[in-house]
Every structure is written in structure tokens, then in C-alpha cells.
């Protein structure tokens, strides 16, 4: 699919003579040497990115790695020194002021770390700012701002002033302000970094909920790997102005490109990254229906390594689990379902961290279903222990560095 944002050979050099800095980069000098020689600071260097429509793309890096500069190059709050940024195939770097303003007010909204609300305006008028700037009439823009506030759960506070709200609520206003213009792309610069950890998690959930309702392309800047893993479909890691690795969270964790990337995992809980779907058994599981007899069930289980079979409904939805040893309690012509254990299956996306407590309560393996409730596989105890052991060693290994 054609990416919605395509960045090619993008450079930003700050300072007295950016073109000279650019030449020195091409000569292969590093950031520090260039600064010493010319006083120019390399912000972003040779950046190539393809961001797909509808994904949450997280740009990660330490402070000074150029991530905030990069996001501002996307809507040209910062003028690039060289390279191109295409949004839906149109080059932002060549747009006239008029085209740029149109793009910003219609397609690209932004959420800021410090919220950047207007203290003299009420919450609803803050949320309506983008529409006000675009010249939408007062009644219409308030109506749309109210809808946006409703989406973030702040409708009741529409007439408050920002300083009467908590930090998390203020950022929800910031989010509503971005949503009110119904943009297809949202740029979020460390949007949740100023919030308390609990509120931050809550905001991440809200963002994911909003994405489920209406998928937008989100470019999310963060320095927090836990956050990146939780919300990111893909993560780009920046170091010294360069993008050093792009990939899905699991790819980056299992194969970090360099020491810098690896250093982010220090103290990160990898059991949050891996999910039930990653560690389940999906082969060699006998599938029975509600009428299968105990005799046949025993027969089927005897042919596989495991000692369990699952009973599914006609539509493939999970019903219950039968263990071989319990089948012995029945005569061969009774239905196997009489000794089956009925339990709540887990989703494929349930985090590894949450599985042990489920396993402890369950006499059998944990059934895994997809989002439609269709059976996908079983998380057996040996599999679970193995996965937990692996993630613990990985964490220890990364922590050592």
C-alpha cells in the first residue's frame, strides 16, 4: 500500500550556515565535529521513513536525538535543510504558504507535551481552536468541539477553564482540539510524557480506544519504550539525528540494531511485549464437537503428544477442554463433553505478563481465541514456563549492559 507519509533523504541543520553543515555531513564528518568546526547543529540526518495509513508510528530516542525536530519537519513548523516530505504524494517542502496552511488545518493536527492550551479560553473554545482558525462559524465549531470533547470524556467540563483541570484532563483537551478538525494524521510530540504514570497509561488506552473507533495515522514521539511498545504498531529509533532502526516492537526487541537500541530495554518488562498468540500451541490439538463420544475422544488424544482436546461449536467458537484422564470416568458411548472443563478463553493479544495468574487458576491449558472468538490454540503450562524463562533471561541480559 502507498504510504501516507513518505520521508526521503531529509536533513535539518540548525545554525549560522546550514548548507555548509550539510556539505560536511556529506564529507562524512560526525555531529560533534561539525558543531566544533562550524557551530552548526545537525538536527536530523538522512532520514527515510514510510508511514502507512492508519498505523501508530512511534519515533523513539533520547532527548537530543532529533525526534521532536523530525515531527516538526513533517508539518514544516521547522523548515528542512534538504530532502522531501510527502503527505499523500504531495511534497510538503515545496508547498506555498497557502497550501501549507490548508494542509495543517485540514489534514495534520498536533498534540503537544506542554498541552499548549489557551488559558483565557474555556475548554470548549480551546477544543474549537483549529476550527476557529479555519474560519468555521461559532455555532458549528462549538458543536464539533463538543463532539470531540465527548470522545475524550470531557463533555461535562466544556465550560471550565484549563487551569481548573488536572494535567491528564488538560491533555485530553489537547487531544480533543486535535480531533475536532477531524484530521487524517495526528502528530503527537511527547504528548503523555508530562503526565503521571497512571494517567499516562490511561491516556494510552484512550488513544487506542479512539483508534478502534476511527483509525487515523498517528506519529507519536516518545522517549519511553514501555509506551512505544504499548501503543506502537511500528517503532523507529533515532540516535544523533539518524533513524537507526524501524520495525514492529517485537522485531526491535528480538533483534536490536545496535547497543544504543538495546540500551532502551534496560528495565523494560518484555512480558508486556509477547502475547498469548506468540507462545500458544496451535498444532496437534484434537478438535471435537459437542456430540463426540468419550471413546472417540480417547482415540483422538492418543494420536497426539498432548493430553487434551478442545470442543468447539459448529461456528468454530471455543466451548470447552477435555483432558484424557477425565475421559476414563465415562463409558465409551457417553459424550465427552460431560467431563469437559468450561472456562473463559483469552484473546490472542493478551500480554504474557497476565497469563501466569490465569494458568494458576486453571486446571487445564489456557485456550486462545481471535478477536471473533474463534479458537486459535492452547497455551500449555510447559510453553508458558519456557516463555517466562526466556523473557527473564533476555531482561537480565539487557540489564547487564
Amino acid at each position, binding site marked *: 500500500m502507498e504510504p501516507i507519509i513518505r520521508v526521503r533523504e531529509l536533513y535539518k541543520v540548525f545554525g549560522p550556515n546550514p548548507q555548509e553543515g550539510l556539505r560536511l555531513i556529506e564529507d562524512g564528518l560526525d555531529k560533534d565535529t561539525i558543531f566544533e568546526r562550524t557551530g552548526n547543529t545537525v538536527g536530523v540526518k538522512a532520514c527515510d521513513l514510510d508511514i502507512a495509513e492508519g498505523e501508530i508510528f512511534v519515533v523513539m530516542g533520547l532527548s537530543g536525538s532529533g525526534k521532536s525536530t523530525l515531527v516538526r519537519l513533517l508539518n514544516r513548523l521547522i523548515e528542512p535543510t534538504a530532502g522531501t516530505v510527502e503527505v499523500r504524494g504531495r511534497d510538503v517542502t515545496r508547498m506555498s*504558504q497557502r497550501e501549507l*496552511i490548508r494542509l495543517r488545518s485540514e489534514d495534520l493536527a498536533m498534540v*503537544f507535551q506542554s498541552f499548549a492550551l*489557551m488559558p*483565557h479560553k*474555556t475548554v470548549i473554545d480551546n477544543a474549537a481552536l483549529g476550527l476557529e*482558525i479555519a474560519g468555521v462559524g461559532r455555532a458549528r465549531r462549538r458543536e464539533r468541539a463538543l463532539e470531540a470533547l465527548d470522545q475524550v470524556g470531557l463533555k461535562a467540563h466544556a465550560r471550565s477553564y484549563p487551569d481548573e483541570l488536572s494535567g491528564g484532563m488538560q491533555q485530553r483537551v489537547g487531544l480533543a482540539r486535535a480531533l475536532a478538525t477531524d484530521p487524517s494524521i495526528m502528530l503527537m510530540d511527547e504528548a503523555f510524557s508530562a503526565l503521571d504514570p497512571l494517567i499516562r497509561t490511561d491516556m494510552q488506552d484512550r488513544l487506542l480506544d479512539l483508534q478502534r473507533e476511527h483509525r487515523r495515522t498517528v506519529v507519536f514521539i516518545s522517549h519511553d519504550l514501555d509506551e512505544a511498545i504499548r501503543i506502537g504498531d511500528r517503532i523507529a529509533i533515532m540516535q544523533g539525528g539518524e533513524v537507526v532502526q524501524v520495525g514492529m516492537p517485537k522485531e526491535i526487541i528480538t533483534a536490536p540494531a545496535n547497543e544504543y537500541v538495546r540500551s532502551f530495554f534496560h528495565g523494560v518488562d518484555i512480558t508486556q511485549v509477547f502475547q498469548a498468540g506468540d507462545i500458544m500451541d496451535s498444532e496437534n490439538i484434537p478438535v471435537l464437537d459437542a456430540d463426540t463420544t468419550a471413546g472417540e475422544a480417547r482415540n483422538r488424544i492418543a494420536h497426539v503428544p498432548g493430553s487434551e482436546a478442545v470442543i468447539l461449536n459448529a461456528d468454530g467458537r471455543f466451548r470447552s477442554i477435555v483432558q484424557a484422564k477425565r475421559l476414563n470416568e465415562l463409558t465409551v458411548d457417553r459424550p465427552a463433553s460431560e467431563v469437559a472443563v468450561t472456562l473463559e478463553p483469552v484473546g490472542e493479544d493478551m500480554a504474557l505478563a497476565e497469563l501466569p495468574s490465569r494458568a494458576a487458576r486453571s486446571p487445564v491449558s489456557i485456550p486462545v481465541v481471535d478477536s471473533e472468538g474463534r479458537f486459535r490454540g492452547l497455551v500449555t503450562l510447559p510453553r508458558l514456563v519456557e516463555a517466562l524463562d526466556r523473557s527473564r533471561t533476555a531482561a537480565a541480559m539487557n540489564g547487564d549492559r
Partner: protein
Amino acid sequence: MEGRINIPVGDWIETAVDWILDNLEPGLDGIAWFLGLLTNSFEGALLAIPAWLLVLVLVGLSWWRVSWRFGIFAIVALGLILGMDLWEPTIKTLSLVLAATAVALAIGMPVGVAMARSDWVEASIRPVLDLMQTMPPFVYLIPAAIFFGLGTVPGAIATVVFCMPPVVRLTNLGIRQVNREQIEAGLAFGCNRRQLLTKIQLPLAMPSIMAGINQTIMLALSMVVIASMIGAGGLGNTVLTGIQRLDVGLGFEGGLGVVILAILLDRITQSVGRRRKGSH
């Protein structure tokens, strides 16, 4: 004084003044006409209103915008002015202050905005402001009197020059102090240059600008009193008469009138920038 170096700055200024008098007469007349009109309109309007009604309005404003205590102070203070028979000079002073402030704001705020937008403009205006503020106020009286004669108009002009710097400085400062992310928010949501100024920068700079306006009004009031020396009239005249006759009582009464006016103007203008909760 043989051998001493003598730079005739005074002579140059006199030459310049002569040149202006000879060549810019119509311009000076225009300014004089406009300022005269403005002050007279304010004065005419304020004197046309019955004193009790104006007192009521001022007390109401004090009560509503500041506090009920200040409202009571306003009743007593304005009652005192009426009782001292200083109503007319007080109104004359007030009109001069209002006219001078209006002109100072009309010139000063755009200058402040221009300074905020360009470092070059800021660097070139700043020394002019320093000069305007540190020059002893009496010095303005001389050219004002030469260009415009004696009376209300030169008083108003000297006042405009003297009271303008704070609003220029604080408009500039207020706009420059607007948070970078708030500017970016404006731009990111599609502001053009004009919208950035009117929708983001000026509203966010408003507390600072209001402080500047308040300072400008206070300076205008102090200058209006001094300007009575070239016949601007009002409370300053009362004080001046007191001095000339060595009449301590009269001088004190005039001074008290100025103080009361200052307190009322200060507190009421300070409250304008403040938000009233639940007013929407």
C-alpha cells in the same frame, strides 16, 4: 572658556526646533487640532453627565470589578472630591489622562507589536524608549510649549510622550514571552501571520499588556499634574496655585484629589485583565 571643547548640543536642538516650526507648521496644527478635539470631547462628555451619575458609575465599577470594600472607599473618596469642590478640575484631569492614554496606546501598542516581531526594530526602538523614560519630565514641557503654545494641547502632548514607554515595552515583552509550544500550536492548526497575532500572541500577552496600560495611565496622571505648569489645567492647577500662594491647605486638597484619582484608576484598570470566574 578658551581651549575648552564645547559641543553645542543645545544649539543644535534649538536649530532643529526652529526648522520644525518653520516647515512643519501644518502638521503641528493638525496634531494640535486632533488632540484638542479628543480632550475636549472627553471633558465635554464627562462634564455633561451629572456628577452623581458619574460617581454612581465609578462606585459601581469599583464594587463590581474590585470588591465591595473598594466600592465603599470609592463612595467616600468621590464624596470627598465633591465636598472639596474639586469635581471640575478632577474631571479635567481625568479627560486629559484618558485622551493622552488613548493616543499613547494607539501609537504604543503597534510599536510594541513591531518590536516583538523583529529584533532589529526592537534594538532601534529600545534606546528611544530609554531616552523618553529617563529624560526629566519637565524637559518635555519646553518644546511642547514652543510648538503648541500654552494650554491643554501641549500638556496632552507632553503627557503622551512621557507615558507611552511602558505600554510599548510590555506589549513587546508580553508577546515575546508567549510559550514556544503555544505559538507552534497556533501554526500547527493553520494560523497565518495575522491570525497568529490576533488569536494567539495578543490574547496570551494580554496580562502583560494590561500591566503596561495600567502603568501608562499612572504615568499620564503624574505628567498631567506637571503639565499644569504650561497651563494644562485640572488638579495640577490647584496644586500649582497652592504653591504660588504658599497655601498649604489648597495644595494638599489638590494633591489629595490626584491621589484619589490615581487609586481609582489603578485598581479599576488592574481588574480589567482579570478573568471573572463563571462569567461565561
